[in-house]
């Protein structure tokens, strides 16, 4: 019995594909979330609806309508993920984006009404199936939208992070990295990677990490610094840590962290002086 009904939904869509498409497109266009705000052109709206129905139909034909996380709905999910991503970037809200799916209900219900005009039980079942299916797809769209939003925010945070922790070439072969603010695991990772990359790009011989602007150094921070220094050494460059205040020196010793022969200097100027000397430069004042 159930199989017959599902086949019928799929059939209803095949028979009335054009009607469904034009009705849905019409509704999308007239909804205030799209054309009124002018963020999507009429043509784009029609195109998206068409593309969606092109992959929606084959998925329906698999007759597996209960689990949208199955492989039958892979293409549809991928389409919705892409749609969400684009809508996030275009500034749509999550419900505006989900409406893409929910507004399809109307046209599908109408198609079912026409298909099962004489059979109210089949019609009711068909409407229920479609409702559950589109609700699930709509929820997936919202989740997808949220993830895409998070990704954008994370990327922006990373860019901000990079901007706030610039790697500066302060001399031929010498890079400086002034760290400001608290150092956490995620931040240190990003900073470490970008510093190492810059060392390779500039073929720098010495990297100075200045921690004057870091308020506290706990075991974790000390370990992160140590890892960074070790990685730099493995790549073949030297590292000097500057801005080590008396408090920090005490903390490091009390914590029992062994800095393993890492050169430390009280301030950036001293570090630069040492770096230049190591690089073979000498200066005289006139």
């Amino acid at each position: 019995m159930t199989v017959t009904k599902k086949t019928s939904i799929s059939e209803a869509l095949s028979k009335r594909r054009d009607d469904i498409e034009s009705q849905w497109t019409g509704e999308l266009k007239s909804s205030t979330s799209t054309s009124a705000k002018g963020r999507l052109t009429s043509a784009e709206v029609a195109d998206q609806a068409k593309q969606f129905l092109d992959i929606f139909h084959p998925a329906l034909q698999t007759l597996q309508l209960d689990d949208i996380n199955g492989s039958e709905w892979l293409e549809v999910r991928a389409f919705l993920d892409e749609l969400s991503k684009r809508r996030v970037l275009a500034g749509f809200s999550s419900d505006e984006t989900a409406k893409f799916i929910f507004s399809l209900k109307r046209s599908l219900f109408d198609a079912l009404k026409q298909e099962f005009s004489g059979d109210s039980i089949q019609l009711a079942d068909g409407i229920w199936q479609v409702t559950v299916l589109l609700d699930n797809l709509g929820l997936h769209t919202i989740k997808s939208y949220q993830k895409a939003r998070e990704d954008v925010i994370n990327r922006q945070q990373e860019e901000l992070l990079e901007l706030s922790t610039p790697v500066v070439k302060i001399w031929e072969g010498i890079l400086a990295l002034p760290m400001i603010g608290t150092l956490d695991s995620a931040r240190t990772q990003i900073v470490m990677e970008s510093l190492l990359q810059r060392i390779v790009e500039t073929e720098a011989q010495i990297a100075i990490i200045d921690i004057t602007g870091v308020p506290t150094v706990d075991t974790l921070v000390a370990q992160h610094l140590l890892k960074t220094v070790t990685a730099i050494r493995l790549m073949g460059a030297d590292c000097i840590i500057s801005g080590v205040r008396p408090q920090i020196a005490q903390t490091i010793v009390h914590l029992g962290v062994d800095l393993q022969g890492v050169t430390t200097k009280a301030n950036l100027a001293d570090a630069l002086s040492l770096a230049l000397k190591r690089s073979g430069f000498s200066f005289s004042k006139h």
Partner: protein
Amino acid sequence: MPTLHSSGELPLKSEHDMVLGRQMVRRLAQEQGFSLVDQTKIVTAASELARNALIYGGGGMLKWEVLLDGLKRGVRLTFQDQGPGIANVELALTDGWTSGHGLGLGLSGARRLVDDFELDSVVGQGTRVTVTRWK
């Protein structure tokens, strides 16, 4: 609840198998969009564990799975061998990160390179190590 997206198996019976295994893991990580550093980490962990299975376990099997948890993607690797097993798991896993010779097992190191780590070992029967790295 993570769902399975795809999976497969590879034998680990020779050095050549190890090379293939590494290449497979690299490919999986790339396909799932892992950053270069994260790719390197999981491939290196796989190399350590595959070597264990081959050299200490007398050969075994690598099962790989791509998992989806909501919208998170993960790569899970299971290394199974029918070797002598590990007598003292605690000892094998506790290794100061500065030393490079942890009974030659590389387990503690591999653990640091992944997000989830599970070890099952029965002396005389074999060892199974399951690691997962999430994007």
